[in-house]
């Protein structure tokens, strides 16, 4: 049983705010394959295409038959715990600050034995366990030994919380409360136990429905925030930047035009101004504050979420300028991820397919319900993943894009 986490006491303001020391982060090119899978929530190991032997640690050639044909394949992770040990000393700063730390040796049913961080609910060896891959605070894949059947509060495990970005007891900024997705996010975050949810409210004279419903929650406060206005972003950062643990940037402009369907550049500029420059303004003002608090107690600053679009991967000509703005945002988000990594702040990119809102009114189903996007974002925070493709359309496009981006480009040019 994991004891439910209690709300931490307020921090003592006369003590120095602790700074982040990352866990060991160096990985070879081959080992990054495990990180790539963990970034999407999968546990993958290399499997030899010639003799089917499963490999660990990652390598260039099969340890059994020396074949170089190794492919990353999803693993069930089931196995037998052989031994456990608890570290009471470490020269590595990350672990030194988090002692004691429990580890285990597990024989996977698939073959290899692996060294893992152990969840608190896993007892002594021998025991049946399930291995999963998670990203650690350095953003690299590590293996974790989970109990076969977890209890209700297993997410509150101290070790596991180091790998995830759980909104429970955290203070969250949602940049746009006027959209259906923004409002669904606020409800989902409150349900997930967020301590405070600040909700951006641009152009307050435009009264959108639903705002009264979100402000009914005592945790929720509307704040003036207009991502097109640098001064508005910097004023809000000055006010609450030092308290925000999670930034969720869901503000977007979405119009359905290609190049010829709309004269001029004003619509494309409006899309870029929010979808790309808005992210840039937000990151310049809030990024530093988040980094400075990434080891600040049990509810330290932890994550940054960008609502992108599956069209960021490949242009959907019917929504051509929107696609381009999301591609720009994706590129900038990769830069943000690189700049946030030294502090251990996770940058999560969300790539939904068409959302069931007024700007996709003419799109045939399936369309993602705003509440489904919100659940996917909260789940991504809880699971500690980095890239999320919620819904069937996104999943299918992703598969086609991975299979052959050029083929997908041709298919999209023909209408999908």
């Amino acid at each position, binding site marked *: 049983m994991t004891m439910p986490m209690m709300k931490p006491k307020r921090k003592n303001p006369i003590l120095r705010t602790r700074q982040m020391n990352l866990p060991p982060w160096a990985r070879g090119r081959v080992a990054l394959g495990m990180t790539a899978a963990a970034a999407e929530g999968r546990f993958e190991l290399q499997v030899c295409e010639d003799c089917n032997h499963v490999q660990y640690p990652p390598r260039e050639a099969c340890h059994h038959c020396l074949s170089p044909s190794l492919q990353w394949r999803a693993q069930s992770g089931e196995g037998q715990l052989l031994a456990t040990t608890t570290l009471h000393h470490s020269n590595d700063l990350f672990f030194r600050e988090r002692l004691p730390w429990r580890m285990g040796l597990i024989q996977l049913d698939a073959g290899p034995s692996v060294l893992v961080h152990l969840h608190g609910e896993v007892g002594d060896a021998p025991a049946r366990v399930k291995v999963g891959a998670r990203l650690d605070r350095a953003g690299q894949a590590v293996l974790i030994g989970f109990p076969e059947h977890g209890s209700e509060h297993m997410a509150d495990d101290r070790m596991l919380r180091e790998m995830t970005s759980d909104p429970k007891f955290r203070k969250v900024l949602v940049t746009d409360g006027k959209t259906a997705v923004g409002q669904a996010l606020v409800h989902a975050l409150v349900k997930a136990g967020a301590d405070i949810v600040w909700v951006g409210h641009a152009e307050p*004279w435009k*009264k959108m429905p639903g705002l009264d419903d979100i402000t009914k929650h005592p945790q929720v406060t509307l704040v003036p925030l*207009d991502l*097109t*206005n640098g*001064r508005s972003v910097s004023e809000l950062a000055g006010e609450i930047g030092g308290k925000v643990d999670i930034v969720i940037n869901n503000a977007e402009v979405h119009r359905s035009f290609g190049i010829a369907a709309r004269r001029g550049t*004003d*619509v494309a500029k409006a899309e870029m101004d929010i979808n790309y420059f808005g992210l840039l303004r937000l990151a310049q003002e809030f990024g530093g504050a988040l980094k400075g608090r990434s080891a600040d107690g049990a509810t330290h600053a932890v994550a940054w979420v960008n609502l992108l679009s599956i069209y960021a991967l490949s242009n959907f000509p019917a929504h051509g300028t929107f696609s381009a703005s999301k591609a720009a945002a994706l590129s900038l988000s990769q830069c943000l991820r690189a700049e946030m990594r030294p502090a251990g702040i996770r940058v999560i990119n969300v790539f939904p397919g068409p959302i069931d809102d007024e700007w996709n009114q003419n799109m045939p189903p399936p369309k993602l319900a705003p509440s489904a996007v919100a659940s996917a974002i909260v789940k991504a925070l809880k699971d500690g993943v980095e890239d999320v493709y919620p819904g069937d359309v996104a999943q299918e496009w992703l598969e086609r894009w991975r299979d052959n981006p050029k083929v997908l480009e041709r298919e999209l040019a023909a209408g999908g």
Partner: protein
Amino acid sequence: MTQATNNSLLATVAQALASRRIRVVDLTQTLTPDFPQIALPPEMGQCWPFRLEEVSNYDERGPGWYWNNFSCGEHTGTHFDAPIHWISGRNLPNNAVDTIPVQDFVASAFVIDCSEQVKADPDYLLTVEDIERFEEKHGRITAGSWVLMRTDWSKRNDPVAYQNFDETGQHTPGPSSEAVQFLVEQRQVLGFGSEAIGTDAGQGYHLRPPYPCHYFMHGAGKYGLQCLTNLDLLPPTGAILICPPLKIQKGSGSPLRVLALVEEQA
């Protein structure tokens, strides 16, 4: 050209300005990112709000100087509407801000106080009777003058109250269709000025024709001023407005500084 001697008209004005017998009143709202812009349905083209981006501030981007880039629409903040702004004025000669005769940028103003009516009804429309009642008291509106509708709407500092939207749209005062036609046809005014976001009322789209002030004024080569402030500091008659818009080639309007010269009672 004759030199301005001590007893010339302009020398008298200069003395009156120096002695503050003529006061200069600023009728302009400050350009700030927080001031709302006109809002159209989202599928239409939009007027940019005022935005400011710092170029340098005595820092590594420019150690000895401070300056900004700004962006906005032609119809952002306190601004001037040229006849070319409206389809009814599209084919008139000299209908854009760069070709309007500059003499028109300095003219007298008649200020009709509707602040009491607007207090009771934010959708208040200026009527022909209001104009006639004004003229009974203050004299006939002269041709080539501005008519300004004082509503004290500019005292609504909160953008939400200033825009005053509900589910049926915006609720701000303006002139009735009949009043506009009266001012254009019977009084040959220079233009119409208001304190709200447009010269037409918030519900002006539902009048006949839609947006009558834009339609008739610009169709007759007249101008518009909106987002004015401090109209309560002007006398009903006798003020002179100085309001030259930016000289934008084929510009439909421009943000501008609107100044009024007001003579103190001796």
